[in-house]
């Protein structure tokens, strides 16, 4: 019971801090807009797509995945702030278990990242990208599932880092490869991509997250290009989440 309350209060803290950071909420509109409008316009003719798909439709789930990734990784900074300003100590000496501490922070940060993802989805609809709004309901749990693992990466790295500068550098090292190698900006299949690129992408958990989002938002139009059927995508992402939660709990247990 007290573990549940501990979880709730840690979750609530992340939400409150996020909500109070208005500037970040506002700026979060800008980046996806640039990708969806400018990048999509410039590159729409570069990729061979079936006649029933346009490039914006394909890139929207990719940009949602990118937003989830970047926001999730950014959340690791909170851990470093907490260490720097001492608040982490207050949490770590409390009777709440490290598993609960990790989970509370992770789900809280994931909720924040999810909100950012939702914003991108809404922007996509507002731009008139032909995606059925009802698929939003299917996409929502998948988005959450994707963020769990990604937030965990950020938290694990942050738990090992002592300062913000170091975290910033490592964050870029993780963010960009995961983003570019996930097929977020182009279909991995059915094109003329070099096979090494496709092979590496197969090891990227985000590849399956983005594929799952395309499977639900684009439906049968995506089937010829899909990496895996939806249930395998979800299985891979869930497996990754499970592993990262174990790693994260371990990382938080060894944190002083």
């Amino acid at each position, binding site marked *: 019971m007290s573990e549940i309350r501990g979880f709730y*209060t840690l979750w609530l803290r992340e939400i409150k801090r996020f909500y109070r950071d208005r500037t970040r909420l506002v700026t979060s509109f800008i980046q996806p807009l640039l990708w969806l409008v400018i990048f999509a316009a410039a590159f729409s003719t570069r990729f061979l797509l079936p006649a029933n798909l346009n490039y914006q439709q394909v890139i929207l789930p990719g940009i949602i995945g990118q937003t989830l990734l970047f926001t999730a990784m950014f959340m690791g900074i909170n851990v470093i702030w907490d260490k720097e300003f*001492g*608040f982490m*100590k207050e949490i770590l*000496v409390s009777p709440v278990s490290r598993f609960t501490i990790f989970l509370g922070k992770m789900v809280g940060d994931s909720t924040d990242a999810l909100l950012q993802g939702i914003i991108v989805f809404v922007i996509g609809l507002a731009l008139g990208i032909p995606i059925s709004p009802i698929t939003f309901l299917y996409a929502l749990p998948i988005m959450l599932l994707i963020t769990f693992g990604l937030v965990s990466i950020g938290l694990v790295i942050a738990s090992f880092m002592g300062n913000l500068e170091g975290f910033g550098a490592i964050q870029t090292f993780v963010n960009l490869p995961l983003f570019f190698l996930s097929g977020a900006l182009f279909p991995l299949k059915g094109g003329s991509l070099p096979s090494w690129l496709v092979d590496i992408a197969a090891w990227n958990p985000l590849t399956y997250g983005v594929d799952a989002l395309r499977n639900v938002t684009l439906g049968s139009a995506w089937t010829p290009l899909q990496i895996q059927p939806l249930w395998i995508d979800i299985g891979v992402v869930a497996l990754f989440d499970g592993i990262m939660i174990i790693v994260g709990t371990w990382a938080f247990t060894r944190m002083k």
Partner: protein
Amino acid sequence: MPAVIETRQLTKSYGQLKAVDELSLTVESKEVFGLLGPNGAGKTTAISMLCTILPPTSGSATVNGFDIVREANKVRKSIGIVFQDPSIDDRLTGRENLYMHANLYGVPASEQKERINRILKLVELEDRADDLLRTYSGGMRRRLELGRGLIHYPKVLFLDEPTVGLDPQTRDHIWKYIKELKETHDITVVLTTHYMDEADRLSDRIGIIDHGKMVILDTPSKLKDTLEGDVVVVRANDLNALSGFVAKWLGFTKNTIVDGALEITVRNGRTVMPRIMELATQNNIYVESILLREPNLEDVFLHYTGRNIREDTSKELHGASAARRRAIR
């Protein structure tokens, strides 16, 4: 009285360095126990082990009857901690910080509101409770942390350097709360400090710790008694002559001239002062001032460690405390 904390040969080593070296001590229920020592003496390391933050290298300890290694979680529920460094979330309000703490420590939801209101009243932050922490002054933050440590009704409250970096007025304020706490709560307080006056004013018993070892442990007054001696400080126009007369006629050979004043160590200063005045008048020495200095903990510390506590360069020499110390030097 029953023991609330017991340590047996508690040791923490970092390689060759023994930060805490076979520390054995007993803290009794409801006392304020002062752990006094210079920076780097091992105070925070000792406290960290008792708070289950650091595992001991060897030895053992119990807090509230629970082993600090095997029953760490029960120890955590029994204690409140005010860390040396700030540990509050400055993007939340004071009240939110307190609610968070109450939830982390499993305070029943039905009692939270009332307890938090009472704590806010105790530390006089009721009218600022719903402001973000970042708008609080250093002293207000400290008060909130002090109050926060009490919400879950701990048996032992650890205060690690509670007034470092605060201005004298705020220190007075904090001291007042700690004293009040002792009178109104069923609680044992363990306090670390490198301020002599702080340990003296608050503690029932004081342990002086240096190089990780307990040098001596007693009540403040008994510690001062062990020095056996007051110091009479005389300012006069001819100190050298007075020094000679005092030694010759009164037999006080333990006298030295320090900073333009004659310091005479005697057993009972109050009865000696008139004799010194008499002697000076008879020999036409003009006395500007004469005062009695009873031994303070500073002298005790010097006596037992051979070092002046303020000689240590410290990492937290900043803000008000640094200014204070510069003024003292």
